[in-house]
């Protein structure tokens, strides 16, 4: 405990970071693209396959017990599994071996655009075969609760890979899931991976949440995924440790890793595509902004080009004749997510191209050739 605190303060005592300035650009192949990565990894023979297999076989022996504990509706237990390694395969095996005769819904919490609505819809529309829409998730949860209560013999299993997934972390989502889990004939089997997932505190968690991934403040007070006491009692968890050591291949496949050149390629091609469909003047406007941004790439305090300055520059290059024209053009850029606007501290609007400098240089070069 003492160590922990000291280490923390040691690391945060001075704002200067002592790391080398080498960047990945120095690498021979700075960034691998996704295909190469997957090909390379598939060639890699996993080590300790035998031990890992034994470990997983041990977890599979618990399947019957899980089933029994979830099905005792008088107790209303739900099961959460944790531990290092992907648990998706384990849950999949559970479904295929024990749930083939039961209605079940599998949710991938790590899926970047999973929503509570999607989960609820698949329960109401596909499992309970209800046609019609609901005003809000609360009503939908109530509907599910009432329907299941009327037919106590109808058991629905909800399998959630990563209930701590970025899109499910919200308080409301967790509350709704808790309400579902509390139903006597809805059985929840979930897995968690994030190290801060089960924190029961409300504040002062080192922030690593989805919505402020870009915030510079390492420990901000925004709400983390939290099961407070009320939720814990709704979920009524039984915990099982299932360390699998299996790679989180699927779970991480959606993430835009720093090291994979996926975003760059995508951004570049979308930039070129959108730009091609624009008028030469509009292209010129964008080019102006891009050049200005590249000029300032070494300036860490660069927040963007202010609208007034931008207008001045555009006028000078005979690209626009009034600020209304410029504004219309900017709206179009913004709609295509080519630029981002930010209000500065002085209330002035600053314009930025949300693309890294390497891609932007590539883009300008390509544009020059054309």
């Amino acid at each position, binding site marked *: *405990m003492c160590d*922990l605190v000291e*280490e923390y303060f*040691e*690391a*945060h005592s001075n704002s200067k*970071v002592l*790391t080398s300035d*080498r*960047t990945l*650009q120095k690498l021979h*192949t700075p960034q691998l693209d996704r295909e*190469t990565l997957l090909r*390379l990894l598939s*060639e*890699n023979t996993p*080590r300790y396959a035998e031990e890992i297999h034994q470990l997983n076989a041990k977890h599979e022996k618990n399947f019957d*017990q899980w089933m029994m*504990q979830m099905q005792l509706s008088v107790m209303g*237990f739900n099961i959460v599994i944790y*531990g*290092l390694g992907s648990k998706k395969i384990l849950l*999949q095996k559970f*479904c295929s*071996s024990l749930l*083939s*005769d039961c*209605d*079940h*819904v*599998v*949710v*991938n*919490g790590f*899926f970047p655009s*999973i929503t509570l609505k999607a989960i609820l819809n698949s*329960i109401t529309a*596909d499992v309970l075969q209800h046609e019609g829409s609901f005003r809000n998730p609360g009503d939908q949860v109530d509907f599910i609760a009432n329907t299941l209560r009327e037919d106590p*013999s109808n058991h629905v299993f909800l399998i959630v890979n990563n209930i701590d997934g970025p899109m499910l972390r919200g308080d*409301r989502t967790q*509350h709704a899931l808790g309400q579902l889990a509390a139903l006597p004939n809805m059985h929840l089997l979930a897995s968690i*991976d*994030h*190290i801060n*997932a*089960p924190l029961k505190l409300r504040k002062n968690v080192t922030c690593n949440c989805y919505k402020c991934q*870009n915030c*510079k403040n390492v420990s901000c007070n925004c709400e983390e995924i939290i099961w407070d*006491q*009320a939720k*814990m009692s709704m979920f009524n968890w*039984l915990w099982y*440790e299932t*360390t699998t*050591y299996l*790679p*989180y291949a699927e779970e*991480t496949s959606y993430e835009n890793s*720093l*090291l994979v050149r996926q975003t760059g390629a995508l951004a570049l091609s979308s930039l070129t595509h959108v730009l091609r469909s624009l008028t030469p003047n509009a292209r010129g406007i964008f080019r102006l902004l891009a050049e200005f941004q590249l000029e300032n790439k070494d300036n860490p305090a660069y927040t963007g080009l202010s609208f007034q300055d931008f207008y001045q520059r555009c006028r000078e290059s005979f690209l626009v004749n009034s600020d209304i024209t410029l504004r219309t053009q900017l709206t179009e850029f913004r709609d295509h997510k080519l630029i981002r606007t930010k209000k500065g501290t002085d209330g002035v609007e600053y314009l930025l191209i949300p693309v890294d400098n390497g891609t932007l240089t590539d883009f300008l070069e390509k544009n020059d050739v054309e």
Partner: protein
Amino acid sequence: MSETPVTSSVSKGCFVFKSTSKKRKRHVGVGGYLVDGSDDNGSDRFRICQKLWETVQMNTEVIQDQLNKHVLDSLVEFIKKHDLGNSSDVWRQRTSEIPTAALMLGVNVPDHAMTFRSLCHLLQDSVTPFVVSVHAKECVAVKHLIQKLLEQLMGKGVSVDEEQEDETALLQRTQCTISALCQWYKTVSKKCPQVSPQRKENVKNNDLPQNLPVVVIFKDFEAFNSQVLQDFILICSRYTQELPFIFIFGIATSPSAIQHRLPHSVSSLLCIEVFQSLSCTQHLASVFDKLILNSQFPFKLSSRVIQVLVGIFLYHDFSVQNFVKGLKFSMLEHFNGQPLSVLCCQKKEALLCAKTLSQKNVERIRHLPSFMRYVETQEPQEQVQLLTSDEHVKDVCQKLLKNLHKYHKNYYPIVQCLHSLTSLLPKFPLGKHIRELHVSCIEKNLWETEEYDSAMQLLRILAKDELVAALEKCAEILKSAKTKRMQNVLQQVEDFIGRLEALEGVTSEDSTGDGVILEKNRRTDLFQLQKTLLEKESRRTKRMNPYEVLRSQVIEFIDSLVREYLTPAELQPLSEVCYYSSSGILRQRLNVTPRTSIQTALSHPFHYLQNESLKTNAGTISSAAPDLCIVYKLHLECGRLINLYDWLEAFVTVMSAAEDQDADSEENGKFDSLKHARFIQAVSEMEFLGFVKSTKQKTDHVARLTWGGC
């Protein structure tokens, strides 16, 4: 398993699988899961388990009701009082204050639901049908709060009068305002006497039905947005003339929460009275009394299990509900894991079961450690019989079961007696609560502990009136015990009380004598005084007065009782049948530390993967470890920010150390692309687990998010 269902997609995160067979397989009998293939009494065990579970449920509800009775009654009193106050219009005109009850419930939020439920029922039965309870979750804005209020109130009114349904449904959509509620309230209260004939009995003055208050319960006051609350209170205070509101705030922390949330201008509109509910420790004590220290309840917990459950209660949540959950889970585990638990039921049933034990179960009995200990103490001939004849084992088993039940019947009264004696002592050597005493009794021989010695020493210097009072309490406890032996003990205790009281004259004479001596010697010098005191001291040790003699007899008697009846439960033959002792499992299921598990897996892979090559010394990074473990260990050596390039380089260095490659060829960023790929994968996994996150503070750097750890 011919085809594995697809549950991965780049466009979908939710997959539904309907049961394939047309007729849905209805709920597999749960008893089915308790049958472990070879065994035939799974359903019996399940039946017993369910019965016990129902007892637990019933008892906890009864306890809750009993404990809450006082505070709920006073709440109802409070509401009735204001209800009557309303009848005089003068009172209403004089003040627009809204009567408010602040109900202190303690931090164990999950337990509150039950309290509120019984409060709602009680109010609806005895005071007013207009009870609304709201949750902070449902009320993000005043609009929602008022909507909830109207829905709950009008929905209720409508359900008795169907004609009006359409009209109110319209109202709900068009105008969700308090004035709409006022209108509704007027119409409903006019015909209220006809609406609910039941209430006629409760309401004394039928001619004033409009006085029925509208009770709004804020279940989790602290969670409400303070602006919402302020607005709502301000609005309601405008309508106090027409609508007799009464608020109940469910508060988990302290009454000052109201001041924190509401400014003076708002809180002055409330007339607040504080109600304190019973503390959760008292609640736990009564649950303990009813379910654990009770010979009628056949299922028992071992000392370790009790410690785990009480630990969770005291250090994590203060929730009695969770404690009961733990108890239920232990029951389930016990009946699931121990085939002999079929004998864990009421005495008659258990004896019947013992007669019809299957051969397998007889064999299981022979393997019980406690039974083996029992066999060892028997004569050689008997030993042979026990090991060969199944019938004989069944007979002995019945005898032992009887003994076990007897043991429990005697154990609990004596534990309670001992507790009532020792709870008077300063510093509570044997624990403040009976649960602590119980735990140490079933764990080991109590009389061999130091705490017991010091308790006995303290008892030996107890004053007479205290001793008599304590013994009387013991007699009271023993009166409820039914066994013959306990009746015997009771007789003896009463005898002691009689003799102690008969001593009255003797002791008082003695003490006055002492007083006189002191009085006389008052003016002598210090040396003299010391001498007389010493003399007195030696005289006292030599010659005990009759009270002291009797007192030591009482203590001897208590000591003998403890040695006879408070033997550790584990030593009782067949104790495994009733006692659930896997505290480890319980902790793993209910109170876990996922992060520790992940960190252990990362830093000591050998713990999970039994491969010799993974055994490493602390502090070194072995190249044999899985990639993720290497990356994790390397990241521990970094500061706040980690340079990805350096991290990669370190990773490759560790990897190639094993392969004995020439390090020079790795220079200038020409890394093996496979290693590069593995590194990428490991870093994304680290990010996924929450150890690092990308940062824009410096190019190609990630921020480290955890500190400490091994």
